[in-house]
Structures are given as structure tokens and as C-alpha cells.
């Protein structure tokens, strides 16, 4: 078994664009769930909308900043549509509606009726919308190598997307850190712990919940852009499973913490990479086909999610007293 190769690949996962995208999505979910206690089970829907908004606007010839704004606007509208009927109801209604709405986005996106816009189930190819992002890079084309990691500077799965991705993640962490300390963040935490107490203090709980839903959703849509930049917009790869992975990441790292989502994402992808690469090397393909190894990885994720939420709901970094999951 080639441990150097496996460990190099695993270390590559630490700062891969996908890891950054999932970390960012989990930061958005952290604002929903960790800070406010909202059960958003449709974070992948926000990401997919962001990805579609960005890609379609870019293909239509809009500049980079406008395409990003479109993605943000799409997520905002989506959050408003979801929030208006459900934020006054019990928490699990929001869960059902968000998971349903994310599914609607996916079903509509992959419908053949919209092939010209969304490319139906085959999606939008990355080359159609990557250019504006790559052109925004201040670096010259070529490849850089940092130790064993050699990637193109600007093209596709590049250093440029890694730099931008992790800078955005860092900014989002800073934002969450500032929010947690702000009066606004304290109201959100109050809502999470005891909605009625906050209401009795004269705060408009509904409005605060809505603001949190929109903010987390917008961060989710940016994560969607990050996720699709090195690949393609594929509606079927951004379905329910993706939301569940984000939940696992958040609960693994620790909800209601600043760095929990980032740590969770790094561990999630590194462990998955170790499991898959090791299995691929050790187990002959006659016993486990390569897609079975993939599925085995996801089975582990599902079991890990169950074990985590039962035995350590606060995750690695969290504080059990801080997060009262059952306040609602």
C-alpha cells in the first residue's frame, strides 16, 4: 500500500475547494441552527440556487460581481418564501418545508422543460461560466507547486479558487464571531434557548428568525458558487444527501462555535478520503467495486451522524451547556 500517496491525497483534502465550499455552507447552517435554532434541512437548495443564479447570469454575459449578486438575491428571495409560512410554526415544519423546497429547486432545475436555461439533468458545464472568475485572478497562468501539491494557478481546480474560497471562509468566520458577540447575535441565541422569553422582552422574534434565515441562506448560496466553480452545476449532485453532509459537518465540528464548521469540514473530507483510498488499495475490486466503496463511505457518514447526535450533540468544539438543541 502506498501510504505516501494516500496521505498526500488526504492532506490535499484539507484545503481543497470542496472542503472550503462545505465549510462555508456549514457556516451558513450554523447561523440557522447553531445561533438561532432553525432546522434548515434544505441548505443544498440554497447552494443549488446560488450556483444556478451565478452560472446562468454569467452565461448571459453578466460580469462577475453582478452574477454573484444574482446568486445572493436568489437565496434571499428563496429564504423569504420559505420563512414566511413556517417561521411562526413549530420547528419541524420548517424542516419539512425546507427539505421539500430544496427538492423543488432540484426537480425544476433538472426538468427538461428548462433545458435551455439549466441544461436539465446533465446540468451546466463549468467551462460555460468559469471565465469571469478566472479572469479576475491577478496571477499569471501556469502551475504552482507547494511540496507535493501541484495545481494550475487559475484554471478550474486551481490555487486561485483555493485562495478565494478560504478567504471567503475566513471572512464568514469573522462575521459569525462578530455576530455572536453583538446584541443582534445575543437576541438570536435567546430565541434559540427560549423564544417566549425573548418575545416577552418585546423583540420581534419572527423578524429576527427571518434575518437569520436570509443571512445563512446567502452564505449557503456563496458556498454553492464555490462548490460549482471547479466542476459543473449538476442538480442531482446537490440534493438531499448534500444537506445531510452539511449537517454532519456542522454537528461534527460543533454547532454554535466559530470554527466548528471549518474543522468539521476538514475532518469529514479527510476521513472520507482515508477510508475510500485505503479501501481502494486494500480490497480487491472483485469484492468491492469502486462505486461500492463510494457508497460504503456514505453509509459511514450516516451512522456517524446518528452516533454524533446521540452521544455528542455538541460536536468536537461545542459546549453542551451552550447549545440546548431541544429548546423548541
Amino acid at each position, binding site marked *: 500500500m502506498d501510504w505516501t500517496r494516500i496521505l498526500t491525497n488526504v492532506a490535499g483534502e484539507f484545503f481543497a475547494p470542496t472542503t472550503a465550499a462545505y465549510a462555508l455552507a456549514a457556516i451558513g447552517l450554523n447561523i440557522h441552527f447553531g445561533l438561532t435554532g432553525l432546522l434548515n434541512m434544505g441548505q443544498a437548495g440554497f447552494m443549488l440556487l446560488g450556483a444556478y443564479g451565478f452560472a446562468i447570469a454569467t452565461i448571459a454575459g453578466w460580469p462577475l460581481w453582478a452574477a454573484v449578486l444574482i446568486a445572493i438575491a436568489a437565496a434571499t428571495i428563496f429564504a423569504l418564501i420559505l420563512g414566511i409560512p413556517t417561521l411562526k410554526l413549530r420547528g419541524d415544519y420548517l424542516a419539512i418545508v425546507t427539505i421539500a423546497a430544496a427538492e423543488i429547486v432540484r426537480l425544476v432545475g433538472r426538468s427538461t422543460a428548462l433545458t435551455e436555461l439549466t441544461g436539465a439533468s446533465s446540468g451546466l458545464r463549468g467551462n460555460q461560466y468559469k471565465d469571469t472568475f478566472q479572469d479576475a485572478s491577478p496571477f499569471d497562468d501556469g502551475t504552482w507547486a507547494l511540496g507535493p501539491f501541484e495545481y494550475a494557478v487559475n484554471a478550474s481546480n486551481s490555487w486561485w479558487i483555493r485562495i478565494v474560497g478560504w478567504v471567503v471562509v475566513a471572512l464568514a468566520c469573522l462575521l459569525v464571531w462578530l455576530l455572536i458577540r453583538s446584541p443582534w447575535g445575543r437576541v438570536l441565541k435567546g430565541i434559540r434557548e427560549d423564544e417566549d422569553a425573548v418575545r416577552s422582552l418585546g423583540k420581534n422574534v419572527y423578524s429576527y428568525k427571518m434575518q437569520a434565515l436570509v443571512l445563512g441562506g446567502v452564505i449557503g448560496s456563496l458556498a454553492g458558487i464555490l462548490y460549482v466553480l471547479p466542476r459543473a452545476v449538476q442538480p442531482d449532485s446537490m440534493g438531499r*444527501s448534500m444537506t445531510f453532509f452539511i449537517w454532519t459537518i456542522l454537528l461534527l465540528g460543533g454547532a454554535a462555535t466559530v470554527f466548528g464548521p471549518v474543522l468539521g469540514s476538514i475532518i469529514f473530507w479527510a476521513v472520507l478520503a482515508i477510508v475510500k483510498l485505503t479501501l481502494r488499495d486494500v480490497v480487491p475490486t472483485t469484492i468491492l467495486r469502486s462505486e461500492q466503496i463510494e457508497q*460504503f463511505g456514505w453509509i459511514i457518514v450516516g451512522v456517524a451522524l446518528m452516533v454524533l447526535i446521540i452521544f455528542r450533540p455538541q460536536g468536537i468544539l461545542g459546549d453542551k451547556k451552550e447549545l440546548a*438543541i431541544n429548546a423548541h
Partner: protein
Amino acid sequence: MRSAVLDPGGTTTPPLARRIAALLLLALTSITLLLVATPARAQGPVASATAACVADAATGCIVGTLRTAAGEPVVGAVLDVVGPAGDLTATSDATGRWSVAVTEAGEYEVTLDVATIPAGETLRDPANNPRTVAVALGASQAALFPLGAPAGGGGGGDTGDEPSDSPTTDAEGGAAVPETPGSTGSGVTAARVAQLTVNGLVFGTLLALASVGLSLIYGTTGLSNFAHGEQVSLGGILAYVGTQLVGLPLIPSAIIAVALGAATGWLQDAGLWKPLRRRGVGMIQQMIVTIGLSMAISYVFQFFFGAGPLRIVTDTPTSVSIGPVRITTTTLWSLAIAAIVLGGVAFFLLGTRAGRATRAVADNPALAAASGISVNGMIRIVWTLGAGLAALGGVLIGLYFGATSWYSGGALLLLMFAAVTLGGLGAAFGALAGSIVIGLVVELSSLWIPTDMRYASALVILILVLLVRPQGILGRATRVG
């Protein structure tokens, strides 16, 4: 907290070892169940698609590609080919392609089994099914079955069973159903409306089997079970294992599938949910556990059975025509079974002591416990019943759509939630009413929106219901926030 109420002695945590043993037991049982099926996978009908036919000196091919009206490939449709080389069948693959290899030249009659094409799809030219093709060795002969609106209208004066060609379709269809502005694709005809209404009623009734369990579990425990879809898939897959891998006839293997499905419900409550309730794990946490469980189970299915469609029965069911509506005899039987079982559930809930106790627990667990009802016992009954009903739903839905798969229940989960919410979360009869409405909405919406978007219409209904009447059709108007 509700969970504390459910388990008066909930402060004592059982030893960790026992809890883990129970979890392991659950995991082992499910794995054993699945392992039974694995060895056969190697030689069994793994490939969902027939191997593509290559024409050579001794072989001729009959080939075709099936696409829905909206242009999506039709997966798992069954074609029957009868001719000099004998009786052959083909199944369309993930791209809608199918092919049959024949070893003798001559005339072959190709029949597309309309029961295996997606619900709501109809043949554009039903008169052309079956169709006859002449096959020569060393060549491929195409036999195409275009799908879309039948090129014949079922207006007022239509007496024939089969819609016939008529140039005045649109006018007739317009009279039957108000023209919707911007209606897409295939037109609205009375025959199509009738067919879709029947499809919707059938689909809704079968969906009700699955969603009644979801609603009962919610009603008695307060848990939104996101893994209920996998219970539905489990039923379908177990029936597939029984008929295709073990070789049992359909009815015994369906009964075994339902029994095993119910057993998994019992085991799940005994090994997972009861310990969690005793431990005082909150509802939100339990809900996230169901999500992890759903993910784990669905990938276990995919691990063992692959991602392709799994056909429970491979022979072509016979169809009967009632007026303009075609329905297979299998579906009629399924409908009868579903109606009897749902009636039985209604009788259980209304007419038996255990059923009344179940409703009492759903109403007010503390009061039920105080009046001597074993709350945990009732919850065990509900889990067993709910999982059994889901398994039956999975088998019948698998038969209705022609195939089951690792995701067949997962895809229905949101429709079940829509139905349950529409009927009122926790109200068992509400789930029945909600399912029928959702079934009709899903099927009839394909009159106006593309077929592949029709599930979305049900989810829009879900959101609208929450906006207007969050307690659902039959739910009590209590404060739900």
C-alpha cells in the same frame, strides 16, 4: 418535554453496554437480511438493462428508445416480443434504450407494456401497440413507441375503447376542461383527464399506505421520521429479493416482505427509539437520528442492489379498459388490497381497545399513562404497524411503477410529508385524505406542467397549506407554533 412524559422512568439511563448491544442487534439484523440477497447478486439479474444487441450473421436485433412526452428517457419499461424465435422480453435501460436479439428472421409482434411506462404517460398512438416489425438476420430493426397525448380525443361522443384518430381533438378537449393559458405540451383531453384522475386515485391510495404509518408515528411519539421512505423502499426491495433472487411467487414474497418490514419497525423501536426515549434524547435530536438512519439505510440498499431499477415481476401484466381508462389487473388487485388494509387500520383505530389506546396516547400521553395505558407498548405497536404498512406500500408502489429501487421510498418521502401535513400532522385519517389529494394533484398537474416537474406541484401544495391552514384538513385548530 414530551419525551419525558412518554417515559415516566426516563431519568434512569440503561447501561451503555446494553444500549450498544441493542443497536448492534438492529444493525446485525438488517445486515443479515441483506446478506441473504448478496450472493445471488453475482449471478442474478444485476443489470437493469438488457445487454445491447449486436447484429451478426445469426442474430437480428429489434431496438428502440423510449422517451416521455417531455423527452426524458423511460427507464424500466417492458416490451414483449413474440415471433418465430419465441417469446422474448426487453427492458429499457437508464437511457431509455432497449433491444432484443432474435435468432430467426421473420415477423415479430412487439408489445409495449403500458403499465411499465411512467404513470401519466400515454402512447401517442395506442392503436400501434402492439406493432409488427419484419426482422432480418444481421440487421437492426427499430420499433418505436412515441409517448405523448393520444392523437385522439375523448370528447362527449367517444364510444370506442381506444381513442381514435380525430382532427378535432383540441376543440373537444377544450370543452371538457377549461383551457389553461400557457398549458404546455400534450393537450388536455377528457380521456387523458379520466386516465390521470384514475392514476391519481390509485397513486394516492398506495401513497396512503405509506403515509398513514408516518402520521401514526408522529402522532404517538412526536417524531418526524425522515427514514420512513427507506421503510417503503425496504418493502419493495424485499419483494424483489423474494421474487427475483429467491424465486418465490409474488404473493408469498410480498407477504414475507411485509412481515419482515413490520419486524424491522418492531426492532427499530426496541433497539433504537425506546432506548433514546429512555435516555431523554430530545425530539430534534431524534429527528436528526432519523436523517442519519435514512442516509445509512439508503446507501446500504445501493451498496447491495446498485442504483438501477429492480423489477419485482418481469412478466407483462394484462390491462383492462374501462371506458377511456386503461388499468392493469395487478393495479386493480393492489387497489383492492390497499382499500381492505386501510379499512382494517381504520377498524383497528376506531373499533378495538388497542386502537383506542393508540389514539389516546396520540391525544395526550400523560393522561393515557395515568389511565393505565402502557404508552411504550402502544408506541411499539405503532412502529410495527407503521413499518408494515410502509412495506406493503413499497411492494404495491413497486408493482404499480413496474420497478422499485434504492431511492423509490426516498423520492416519495416528501410526498408523504406533504400528504401528512395536508391532512394534519398526526391525524391518521387526515393522512389518508391528504394522500389521495396529493396523488390527484401529482397526476393531474402533469396536464399543465412537464411530467418531470409534477412532484414539485405537491410540494408547492405543502407550502401553501402551511401558509393558509397549518393544522391541515383534519387537524385540530390548536396553536402549532
